[in-house]
């Protein structure tokens, strides 16, 4: 078989390594073979290709030193920085909050784990593990690491030496320029050179090619030049309506902290591409960011109308139903995911919880067993934690105690497990232990109100009114509508006033 044809066949079958090897052999024989060169470039790119639309990582640097959003204090309900009070959502009393001050989400993408810390110190001190917030130092850092990853894939040195590349020459060759651009952007992660190539190419085709404008926009987005990115995307849209361009443009608006504008643009896209699932998903994500749960659920449902296999939509709606006291319906959603072939720890854990609360006790433990068998070190603790909850539900305090301990064994920083252990210790009467547990819990997760409140209540019982007062105040800060902590605070205030 003709070797180039074979290489193409490998490429189509996604056997990238073989393809690259074959192409390298061809290039050794004839270094000017454009077809082989182009194919090798594309194969190398496909090995590390990630859909840029989904990538939204914001590092600590971007979060704290953010001058892109126009309004520093926008009206609540119009900004992603100030998640408004949840509309149509259960409060913190029912649904656990994540570090970012938003309720725990059903679906996680790169970037949604990030938080908006107050000061640099806070941001750096927060533990950066997979389950609490993970603000990476800076987005560019991650790209550099990815670049390193790709360097490892070609151990004999980079395939294309960017420093010696003659950009204008390649800009003028449309058949080579596009694959070269993708290589530089995705494989080498070198945005500056990519930008050079893209500018040259756009000029060469006299600003008539919408694809180059979109690539320019992507480069500007990576560099943080959001307004320039916006201009490019808008210009591309004028020439050619494409769903991707709408998605990129809305990413820009989200970064500029203008969620309502983003929703507007998504809706415009929907007028052109009626019922496009990715646009609907985009709107749902924006509403979730603003904590507007009723709209979020509405839009995820619309997504499901169009694309009933959207894992994101199913997961988020499932989570929503679970926390709004309808575990049976949540169970249906998660079962659908199972039917679709999703087979991982998270799903089985969720199925287990839903079964238990929907009173399908026969399925509960088998689901958790599956979850445990599939779990990795990161996930194990959450599964054990939920098993502990089930144990509490059936009244088996020993099993609950053991489960929470096991949760801690896999993850020493599991704040919820500490808190619940503290509650169990209190029931047993071992106040010192419970105090230690509560302290551990609220040191690890100051955004949760439960350990603060528990600590306050326990200190009050013991008589340590000062710490009780401080803790109660912290609990109130974390969850302002908590009646019990408010009551505690007011009674303590009265007490102090009397002194």
């Amino acid at each position, binding site marked *: 078989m003709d070797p180039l044809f074979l290489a193409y066949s490998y490429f189509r079958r996604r056997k990238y390594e073989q393809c690259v090897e074959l192409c390298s052999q061809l290039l050794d024989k004839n270094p000017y073979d454009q077809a082989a060169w182009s194919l090798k470039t594309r194969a190398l790119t496909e090995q*590390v290709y*990630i*859909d840029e639309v*989904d*990538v939204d990582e914001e590092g600590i640097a971007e979060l704290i030193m953010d001058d892109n959003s126009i309004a520093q204090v926008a009206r609540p309900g119009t900004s992603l920085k100030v998640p408004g009070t949840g509309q149509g959502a*259960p409060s913190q009393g*029912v*649904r*656990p909050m994540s570090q970012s001050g938003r309720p*725990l*989400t*059903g*679906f*996680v*993408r*790169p970037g949604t784990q990030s938080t908006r810390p107050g000061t640099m110190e806070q941001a750096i001190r927060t533990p950066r593990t997979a389950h609490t917030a993970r603000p990476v130092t800076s987005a560019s850092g991650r790209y550099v*690491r*990815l670049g*390193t*990853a790709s360097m*490892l894939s070609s151990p004999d040195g980079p395939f294309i030496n960017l420093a010696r590349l003659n950009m204008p020459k390649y800009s003028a060759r449309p058949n080579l320029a596009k694959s070269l651009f993708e290589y530089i952007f995705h494989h080498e992660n070198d945005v500056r050179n990519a930008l050079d190539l893209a500018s040259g190419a756009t000029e060469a085709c006299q600003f008539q090619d919408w694809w180059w404008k979109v690539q320019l926009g992507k480069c500007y987005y990576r560099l943080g030049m959001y307004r320039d990115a916006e201009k490019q995307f808008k210009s591309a849209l004028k020439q050619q309506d494409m769903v991707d361009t709408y998605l990129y443009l809305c990413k820009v608006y989200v970064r500029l902290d203008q969620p309502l504008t983003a929703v507007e643009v998504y809706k415009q896209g929907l007028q052109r591409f009626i019922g496009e699932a990715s646009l609907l998903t985009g709107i749902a994500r924006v509403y979730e960011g603003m904590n507007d749960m009723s709209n979020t659920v509405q839009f995820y449902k619309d997504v499901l109308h169009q694309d009933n296999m959207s*894992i*994101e939509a199913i*997961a988020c709606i*499932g*989570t929503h139903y679970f926390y*709004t*006291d309808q575990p049976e319906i949540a169970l249906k959603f998660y079962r659908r*995911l199972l039917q679709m072939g*999703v087979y991982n720890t*998270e*799903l089985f*854990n*969720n199925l287990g*919880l839903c079964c238990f*609360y929907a009173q399908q006790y026969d399925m509960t433990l088998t689901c958790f067993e599956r979850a445990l068998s599939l779990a990795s070190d990161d*996930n194990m603790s*959450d599964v054990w*934690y*939920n098993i502990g*909850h089930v144990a*509490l539900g059936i009244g088996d305090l020993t099993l609950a105690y053991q489960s929470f301990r096991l949760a801690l064994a896999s993850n020493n920083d599991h*704040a*919820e497990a500490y*808190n*619940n252990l*503290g*509650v169990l210790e*209190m029931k047993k009467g071992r106040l010192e232990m419970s105090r230690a547990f509560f302290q551990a819990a609220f040191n690890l997760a100051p955004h949760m*109100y*439960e*350990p603060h*409140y*528990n600590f306050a*209540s*326990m200190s*009050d*019982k013991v008589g340590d009114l000062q710490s009780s007062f401080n803790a109660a105040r912290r609990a109130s800060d974390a969850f302002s509508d908590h009646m*019990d902590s408010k009551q*505690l605070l007011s009674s303590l205030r009265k007490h102090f006033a009397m002194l």
Partner: protein
Amino acid sequence: SETGLQFHEVLPRNGQVYQEDLPTTVLCKPKLMPLKSVTLERLEKMQRDAQETVKEQE
């Protein structure tokens, strides 16, 4: 969650001798685990592979 109906409790005045509010403790809620997107999984896999390759090379 709020329902449309409201129940008014009836607390009898006679017969009530003593009311004590014990300080309660609050449990953290059961935690549904968020599912990961394809992109995130791929990213994590790539990072893990890269780290392993680096370890092997050392």
